[in-house]
């Protein structure tokens, strides 16, 4: 009873945490638009910037991805995965979700053979005891050699998920998390640089409703390969769009003033050679 209650309380608490995180984090789930949309953004930036802006960290990420991960497969990847998480609330959440998503895949696949369906039907209540199943399948193999191959496959399939399922699920999410962090590091380096270059035309009417995307192509030395382009900005010279044009031009000027973009890791050039900056003045109190 007590255990059950504690479990219930624990689970309720966890649900509350998850639901509130989702509620606060996902704007479309909440009705109040003003305050929540700004506050979480602020938190996001500060944390990542401080964490990832250090060049050492940014370089670490890609290296670790290739080598140590296979080793961890055999170890306690599940236990270790959360370790890099404390830096961020968002990645942790994602990691958790990844696990949830990936676990079902390997477990559902093996349950294809009729034999297993049958065995499942025979003993529905108790948790399957691997040894007993072993025996039945081996018995079948002895009786009929034609099914041997198939049976052995299912055995492996049965066994593997038990042992490997946890590593398989966590390792990709771990490296994905790493990659995400590395990308976040790139984004933050660019963000912190562009902040200093953007002169927001704060007096433009309704500027806090404005947003413009500017695409830049960078050379390896960080200079602009060609003039920046607006993405889906329409005809800026159209009548009635003068204020928006001023806003868009301020964004275009920012990406030009900021060049050359230095401090970006060369080995990730493929990732930053084509950047889309999304300038958003919604946090301005226009």
């Amino acid at each position: 009873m007590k255990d059950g209650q504690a479990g219930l309380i624990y689970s309720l608490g966890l649900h509350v945490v998850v639901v509130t995180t989702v509620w606060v984090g996902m704007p479309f789930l909440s009705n109040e638009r003003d305050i929540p949309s700004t506050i979480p953004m602020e938190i996001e930036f500060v944390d990542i910037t401080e964490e990832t802006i250090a060049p050492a960290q940014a370089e670490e990420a890609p290296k670790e991805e290739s080598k140590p991960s296979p080793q961890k497969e055999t170890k306690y990847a599940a236990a270790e995965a959360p370790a890099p998480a404390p830096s961020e609330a968002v990645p942790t959440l994602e990691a958790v979700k990844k696990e949830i998503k990936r676990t079902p895949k390997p477990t559902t696949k093996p349950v294809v053979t009729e034999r297993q369906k049958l065995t499942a039907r025979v003993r529905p209540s108790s948790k399957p005891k691997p040894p007993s199943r072993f025996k039945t399948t081996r018995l079948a193999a002895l009786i009929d050699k034609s099914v041997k191959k198939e049976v052995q496959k299912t055995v492996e399939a049965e066994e593997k998920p038990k042992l490997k399922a946890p590593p398989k699920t966590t390792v990709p999410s771990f490296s994905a998390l790493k990659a995400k962090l590395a990308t976040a590091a790139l984004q933050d380096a660019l963000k912190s640089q562009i902040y200093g270059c953007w002169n927001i035309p704060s007096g433009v009417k309704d500027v806090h409703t404005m947003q413009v995307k500017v695409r830049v192509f960078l050379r390896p030395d960080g200079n602009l390969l060609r003039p920046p382009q607006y993405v889906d900005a329409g005809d800026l010279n159209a009548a009635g769009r003068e204020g928006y044009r001023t806003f868009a031009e301020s964004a275009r000027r920012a990406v030009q003033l900021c060049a050359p973009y230095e401090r970006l890791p060369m080995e990730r050039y493929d990732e930053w050679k084509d950047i889309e900056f999304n300038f958003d003045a919604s946090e301005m109190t226009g």
Partner: protein
Amino acid sequence: MMKQLMRKIAITVMMILGAASAANAQLKVDVTRGNVEPIPMAFPHFVPQGDAVTAVGRLSEVGEKMANVITANLESTGLFSAIDRAAFIATLSSDEIRPNFATHWRPLGTQAMVTGRLKLLSDGQVQVEFRLWDVLAETQMVAMSYKTPVSNWRRIAHVISDKIYSRMTGEDGYFDTRVVYIAETGDPLNRKKRLAIMDQDGANQRFLTSGDYLVLTPRFSPSQQEITYLSYFNNKPRVYLFNITTNRFEVLGDFEKNMTFAPRFSPDGDSVILTLSEDGNSDIYLMDLSTRNTMRLTSHPGIDTSPSFSPDGTKIVFNSDRGGSQQLYVMDRNGKNIKRISHGNGRYATPVWSPRGDLIAFTKMGEGKFRIGVMRTDGTGERLLTNAYQDEGPTWSPNGRVLMFFRTTPYDNNGGGGDSSIWSVDLTGFNERKMPTPFNASDPAWSPPLPLTRAE
């Protein structure tokens, strides 16, 4: 149940995130912060094509003065900063149309620049041509040429300033405008109050009335070069109409023993809204200027005064003490639907609806001070823009970005103080500037843009 729901939510969220990240091979960066700083610009002197001598000096001097007026105008907005001409790497020649941006101008840190040329024509007129350049993109943003008698150089400099301002900010300029105000001379007990006018930058000061009679609350027509004001001409306080271009004035309706005050034009300039005081009770009236018919809009035992139209002409803001203290109210053009909009501590006076339509400026009295503030038209978002001892009487620039008002210094024990002067402040509350006036000055009223008979 709960677990399943949570799992569903989590999976949905994950799928959304996954889809979002899978779609971009391109690196996306959200930029949500920046600075608010003046944009550095370069204003080289306008270059003469043949340095002829004109009625107002050599063409090269005119070119210098024009560039200086344009620089002062744009710098006064606080949105632009001018790069010191002493730092320029190169001077422009009269046949150089496209400056060498990369080597001469970009190194100065300038982001935009204005070049201009002057040419004296055979008919004695001068041709002024200017170009606004985007130094980073190396493109021409706007260019224009004007032909005018050379004596108009200052006017043309304002017109050019407006073009530059409007191209850079996306809003109409306000440099080719004037301001009427009350010039005060003499000791505080026997002060002469005369109607005066000046350019928006303080140039071309002129008196419009003699000073034999008291003049108060001048207000510009939003559509014409016409002023309405209160005058004690013949010792009777009445509202007058004054046409600046024809120099003629006339009394607005004769209300016999009644007093009229606080006049203001409707947005189309065809009627005037004013306060009429009858047996100590003040109410708001609308007068059609062509027929001189009046319509009573409010009838309340309290004092209703200082009416001001919304730019679309459908609503009127005014102040009234009907609720116990002086507060701001909004009503329909016909006097219906009266609604109180001000709810802060203190009293509110002289409301003025912004030409942009989104804000109402006012004088707020409280905490021992008079301050200028703005609020949205429903009364929300109140902000005080100034914080001196006594600021009052706001008037909007025609584009709704700047306010002028007058500031009075406190009296001291030695009989000093009490001096008034005109100031301007940006809508954001920054960039407070004192207007240069030869005498004490109060009650400014900003004109609409001056008419241009020959442009482009």
